[in-house]
């Protein structure tokens, strides 16, 4: 819009009308916007209706005290907020020093920390949970056996117990740290160094400078990282499922088991939704503040690296702890277990085999699940990008009324728990009138869920890509006689190609191991890798086969990230 004059605006409209494309373009916009509203608003509108009405359909608020008076719901609610709070606090306590260490000090092992952050972001947390059940199970977990030996403890159980509320917190921390790290490292790297230099010149020690200047300057970024960690913890499903910890996402699923209670599921989902949206709103505020802060003081050159002498190894030690416990140990364990015949015979030499990798390709359940996950991830990320291009264009390039609503609507799913969304979809698509579509129990309902969940990636990345393309190029093409479609096809799309590809890959990375919506929506022949892993964990094929499939998921995601970095020339660790 900037720099666009009234006359050339008039020209472009004239050109569009002349080519006869405007009506079709409008139709595409309207349909895409309607689809977005439909996908997001319908399930949640229906759930809001269920949670605010009684059995006869009369308006009531009685469902909230009714369900939150139930002991297991009350416990789940308390657990959700307390544990998410603990995850957030601890993630900030680890993530901020790590980000500072990597971006501003001469610590060792920066590559390990960055790698661990990347792995924590791209791989689903339930893989870590499976590994830690074997590592930190209270009785025979390898870490417990080692600790008992090293500390000379004569107890038969502990000292670690992963099947606990603390297990949930500890296993959620690597992901939380990664979010805090991404936000704050970026702030530390882009900070104007003149204030720090001023402090140093005025006689402040490096410690005083860090505490009084550097950290306060990054506080908005820290806050936004912490809020993101909180929001992700609220919606966490895989870890509490494996550890059997009662939190709201689990309670939603349980209320959809016998006795089947839509009103309970809806009411619980709405509570998670409201909490998530509130967090998301605060997050957006904090991101805006952080950006404002940087814009005022930024100068376009990088602050220097502090030489801390031997003190740098405090950061090195923290980085090493993070790398070992969040990456090397759990994924090393999964690889080890995936090569065992029977988990019961542990590290005995003749217990090792590669047959579990054969099993996941020859057995119907994992094979179908792998195929389904590939289909769903490919289809959903493609739809997400196509919708993202249209909606992103609407938001960034037009003055269509209501685009601000679309902008906000398109980020809403970021704060929505997958189980809550799935509960909404089941209720909507099993009841009239939408039951007529027949999508329940098919891959379609999973596709709808995935597209709804990951649409924010498409809209965000494409919107940013459009904003980076100068309006003048478009104008020039139109003045040169190109119609709207030709302009979009030959000028805009080639220029946003990289952004769109990046969006596709991020959506694929999220969709391939999706668990929280899939666990409720799967049916005959529609298992996906995450539900197959859980099924194996529950007995089918056993832990070694579940680990082999987990390792395969890890490899697919890692390869895709490496490919993405090569193709787009953009690091997945950039803050977006």
């Amino acid at each position, binding site marked *: 819009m900037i720099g666009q004059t009234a006359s050339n605006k008039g020209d472009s409209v004239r050109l569009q009308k002349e080519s006869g494309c405007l009506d079709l373009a409008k139709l595409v916009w309207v349909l895409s916007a309607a689809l977005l509203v439909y996908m997001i608003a319908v399930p949640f509108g229906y759930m809001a209706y269920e949670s605010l009405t009684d059995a006869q359909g009369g308006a009531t608020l009685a469902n909230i005290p009714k369900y939150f008076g139930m*002991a*297991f719901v009350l*416990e789940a609610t308390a657990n959700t907020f307390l544990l998410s709070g603990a995850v957030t606090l601890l993630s900030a306590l680890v993530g901020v020093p790590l980000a500072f260490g990597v971006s501003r000090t001469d610590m060792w092992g920066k590559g390990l920390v960055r790698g661990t952050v990347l792995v924590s972001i791209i791989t689903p947390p339930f893989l870590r949970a499976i590994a830690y*059940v*074997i590592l930190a*199970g*209270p*009785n*025979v*977990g390898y870490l417990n056996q080692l600790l008992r030996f090293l500390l000379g403890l004569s107890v*038969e*159980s502990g000292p670690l117990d992963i*099947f606990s509320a603390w297990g949930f917190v500890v296993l959620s921390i690597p992901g939380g740290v990664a979010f805090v790290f991404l936000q704050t490292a970026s702030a530390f790297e882009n900070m104007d160094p003149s204030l720090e230099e001023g402090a140093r010149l005025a006689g402040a020690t490096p410690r005083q400078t860090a505490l009084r200047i550097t950290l306060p300057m990054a506080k908005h970024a820290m806050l936004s990282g912490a809020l993101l960690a909180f929001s992700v913890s609220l919606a966490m499903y895989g870890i509490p499922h494996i550890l*059997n910890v009662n939190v709201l996402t689990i309670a939603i699923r*349980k209320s*959809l*088991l*016998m*006795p*089947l209670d839509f009103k309970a599921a809806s009411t619980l989902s709405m509570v998670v939704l409201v909490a998530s949206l509130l967090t998301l709103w605060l997050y957006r505020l904090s991101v805006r503040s952080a950006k404002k802060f940087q814009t005022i003081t930024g100068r376009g050159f990088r602050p220097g690296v502090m030489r801390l002498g031997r003190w740098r190894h405090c950061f090195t030690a923290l980085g090493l702890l993070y790398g070992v416990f969040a990456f090397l140990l759990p994924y090393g364990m999964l690889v080890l277990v995936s090569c065992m015949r*029977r*988990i*019961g*015979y542990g590290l005995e030499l003749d217990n090792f085999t590669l047959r579990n990798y054969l099993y996941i390709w020859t057995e*119907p*359940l994992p094979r179908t699940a792998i195929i389904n996950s590939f289909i769903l991830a490919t289809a959903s990320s493609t739809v997400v990008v196509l919708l993202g291009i249209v909606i992103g264009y609407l938001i960034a390039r037009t003055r269509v009324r209501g685009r601000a609503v679309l902008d906000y609507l398109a980020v809403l799913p970021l704060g929505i728990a997958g189980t809550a969304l799935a509960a909404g979809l*089941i209720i909507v698509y*099993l*009841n009239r009138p939408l*039951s007529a579509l027949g999508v*329940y*129990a098919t891959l379609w309902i999973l596709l709808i869920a995935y597209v709804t969940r990951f649409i924010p990636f498409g809209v965000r990345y494409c919107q940013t890509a459009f904003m980076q393309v100068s309006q003048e190029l478009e104008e020039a093409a139109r003045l040169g006689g190109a119609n709207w479609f030709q302009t979009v096809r030959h000028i805009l799309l080639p220029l946003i190609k990289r952004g769109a590809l990046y969006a596709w890959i991020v959506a694929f990375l999220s969709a391939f191991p999706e668990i929280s919506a899939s666990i409720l929506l799967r*049916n*005959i*022949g529609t298992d996906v890798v995450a539900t197959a892993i859980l*099924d194996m*964990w*529950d*007995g*089918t*094929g*056993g*832990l070694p086969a579940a680990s082999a499939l987990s390792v395969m998921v890890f490899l697919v995601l890692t390869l895709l990230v490496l490919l993405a970095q090569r193709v787009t020339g953009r690091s997945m660790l950039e803050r977006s």
Partner: protein
Amino acid sequence: MTQHLRIAFLGLCLSLGLGLAASAVAGELYVYYGTSRDLFEPVVQAFAASRPDIKVSSYRAPTEELMATIELEIRAGKPRADVIVITASQLFGLQQQHKALESYSPKDLEAVKKELRDPAGLLTPVGINLSLIQYNTKRIPPQEAPKKYLDLLNPKWNNQIVVTDPRSSSSAHTHIWFLTKYMADAQGEPPYGWKFYQELRKLNVKYVASHGTIRAMVQTGERPLGIQMLNDAMKSITAGEPASFVLAQEGSPAEITAASLLKGSRNPNEAKAFVDFLLTEKGQDLMVKVGGYVPVRTSTAFKFPDGRGLADIKTVPVDLAYITPEKREEHMRKFHEIMR
């Protein structure tokens, strides 16, 4: 552009047409079951191999989850399953609540033990599953393994026992019925009744979603003792895992696993063929060797790993009329009140 769209549309119509034509030719069958996949899927696949004219699809979920799916579909008037294979008590509840089952008299019913047959023909028994105590042989020598359920309350088993959660496992209700009702009536409360679970709680008993998970925890030794079902315990043995089991002295609750046809099924003939198959010699042989069940057919041979037959142990038939949906809710509520 328009031409491309036309071609794409024609292609879509053609593939839809071909798909419909293909589905009209072959028979279809949808089977829902609740037991671990590796215990029952081979039985389903053996049927599929014997009837290549039928396209067989199956869905497995822990039983309580499966019941929720079935109920969702019945409520929406869109039942997908043609046959359901779960515990008789669950099927009984489904019939009580929704009148959802179709009566059928399978070909080989005469070969089934008389006492197991359902006079109304709504449930076809296909296997018997027993409650038992599974233990890890590397961590607990056979002579030290508990001999009866009350032995589990010995303080030395603190942090060692795992049971199933009645919220997700149907057979958990069998264990609960046996220990809180049947044994309480027979020998008094305490030591049985809910008091038994209160004592278990003091030993930090762990509860998990399914008997498959119990199998995993027992074999790793993370929880070397579990209240388990026969079919999962037999699978441990055939898979060479370091685990064995004890049929408790109090008796072994015998739970019937049954197959039922769903009313309004789109493929009733295929469903009947599948139920018939489960009662054949071959079907019952698979139910024993792969499924780990005690057969319902009198002519099918069966021995426990220690050489005993069914007649050599004390079995207690599960009281189907007792484990109603209301009782299940009560079980879940009381169990979680205690375990909290």
